[in-house]
């Protein structure tokens, strides 16, 4: 039997939720360890080796120091896989990209410490290195993770569902939230999570990225029908996908103010005060 492929896990700016999902998947599908050897996984083990064939990278690139680390991983690994929305899209981290980075740092660390943790706008790892495959989601879906690993072990190019979430939602016979007064981004979001949020009654927030031919114009129309303002719609569109929309430049399907946010030009007056802090400050 040929040697088992060595795989390694790395994290950048992330909440580690995706790595936790991998640990979860290993508990229910122990057989995976017969197929691969895990040589680095900070979240799960202390030993580590620096030779590996497949690298799973969680988290987005948010500072200059990340770039060298990413390039080193790319150099070592035959296959690099973006693990989860942060690595795949930029994810929720990219919400900060709406404002000038200096203002964000002052807001988070205070005037005195604003230089302590230098950072820049969040980007998916594909903005820095070539990425061979992505496992979308915030967090990833454990079955999709296993499925994609299997495809790679067979030497096949992992394929993601190429259609909107509504397909999975309808196959589960869910009543459509958009007709029940709850905004849902399902029509423009890539399927593959088995419509987990909508099945439990929450509108999709687009964590898996856009489906291949998103109809933004009519998605906005549907969201307007819920009484959402143009800015609120922009915020929904950019929650996980700020970077993708920024790549579209002037063509991004956002309001004028939304376009401003893409370039990090929103005034600090639009910072939302954390709810629980209200009244204490």
């Amino acid at each position, binding site marked *: 039997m040929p040697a088992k492929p060595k795989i390694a896990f790395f994290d950048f700016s992330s909440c580690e939720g995706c790595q936790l999902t991998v640990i979860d998947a290993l508990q229910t*599908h122990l*057989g*995976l360890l*017969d*197929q691969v050897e895990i040589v680095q996984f900070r979240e799960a083990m202390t030993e580590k080796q620096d030779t590996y064939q497949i690298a799973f990278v969680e988290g987005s690139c948010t500072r200059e120091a990340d770039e060298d680390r990413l390039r080193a991983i790319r150099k070592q690994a035959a296959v690099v896989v973006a693990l989860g929305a942060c690595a795949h899209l930029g994810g929720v981290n990219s919400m900060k990209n709406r404002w000038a980075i200096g203002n964000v740092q002052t807001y988070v660390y205070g005037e005195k410490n604003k230089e302590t943790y230098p950072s820049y706008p969040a980007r998916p790892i594909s903005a820095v290195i070539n990425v061979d495959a992505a496992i979308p989601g915030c967090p990833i879906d454990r079955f999709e993770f*296993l*499925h994609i690993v*299997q495809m790679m*072990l*067979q030497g096949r190019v992992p394929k993601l569902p*190429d*259609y*909107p979430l*509504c*397909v999975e939602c*309808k*196959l589960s*016979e*869910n*009543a*459509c939230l*958009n*007709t*029940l007064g709850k905004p849902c981004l*399902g*029509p*423009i979001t890539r399927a593959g999570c088995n419509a987990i949020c909508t099945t439990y009654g929450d509108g999709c927030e687009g964590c898996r990225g856009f*489906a*291949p*031919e998103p*109809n933004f*114009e*009519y*998605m906005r*129309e*549907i969201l307007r029908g819920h009484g959402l303002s143009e800015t609120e719609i922009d915020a929904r569109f950019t929650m996980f996908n700020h970077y993708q929309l920024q790549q579209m430049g002037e063509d991004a399907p956002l309001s004028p103010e939304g376009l401003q946010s893409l370039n990090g030009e929103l005034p600090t007056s639009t910072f939302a005060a954390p709810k629980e802090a209200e009244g204490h400050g």
Partner: protein
Amino acid sequence: MTLYILPKEQLPVFVDKLKADFRVVGPVKTETGFAFDDIKQAEQLKLDYPTTILPPKKYFLPQREVLFNYHTSINEKGARQIDTEPVFQDVQPTIIFGVHTCDMTGISLYDKVFLEGFKDEHYLARREQILIIGIECLKPCDDASFCKDMGTLTAPPVYDLHMTEVESRYLIDTGSEKGEELLQKYGEVKLATTDDIRDLSRTLSAKWPRFRHRLKMSRDQLPSLLTINYGAITWDHLGERCLACGSCTNVCPTCFCFDVQDELDINMQDGQRTRLWDSCQLHEFALVAGGHNFRESKASRIRHRFMRKGKYIHQVHDILGCTGCGRCERACLVNITIPGTLNALHDEMQLDANPAAG
């Protein structure tokens, strides 16, 4: 064939008796509407339901169906060997209660598609064990229905039993020997008298005015309407709006397209070949090796759906591909509807023929 009566209060007794020997499914109340589901208690069965998101087609062609299991190994000669073992999923004696006449029309189309000519053995195995108990619609489900236009307001000969609510009783027609046996064995029924039959005819003739026409043309004209309008501008308008979400086809009782996939187990040796619902509205549907897509634009995919509904399926199976159930209209978030589209084609044609009228 033969008409019986079942007093309404006897229905739960009938259902309970059936449950001893069959899986009984039918319309039940959900949080937001109704759905076909297993009847656990006879009282759950709601025969006066308006409509469901998915039609009963899910019992004939499950959303995901295992066709066979496979096992791969290396044999003594060192060659790769694949052993397969067929699977027949969800094959069990099943009674589907409360099927509307439009959905029975969908089932008759399914029977033609899967059993005429090449017989799909997985479909057949399930089908042989399914008995259909229809319910006559006495009023439209809602404003999206246009069953009257599509001629599906009367039951096609696909039912084993067909019930009509007439005051305090159901008049039950037997459509097959199996249906007849079912009544004899499990139902406290009596033969209908001439009075019962007179009441039934009254009920049936009273129902028609409650249904409205929504099409500006007759259904016989659909194949030619669609042929003439292949190049209509209407398709482009719809293509702009369409989300390519596939909801319209997934909820449709006549859509039967599927995809076949191999799903490998974590041990990398065993796996399952599965059949999954697919939709012509999705980008990948007409994508072929080499990257060419026969229906790249959403406009061409919508047109294809309408051509299927009003022309192609009719050409092959001699039955229209739309029952007028209205499910696609309820599911579509951008209000692309069958009557709206067919009427728009009709209007566009009038306009072309007589530009001054515009």
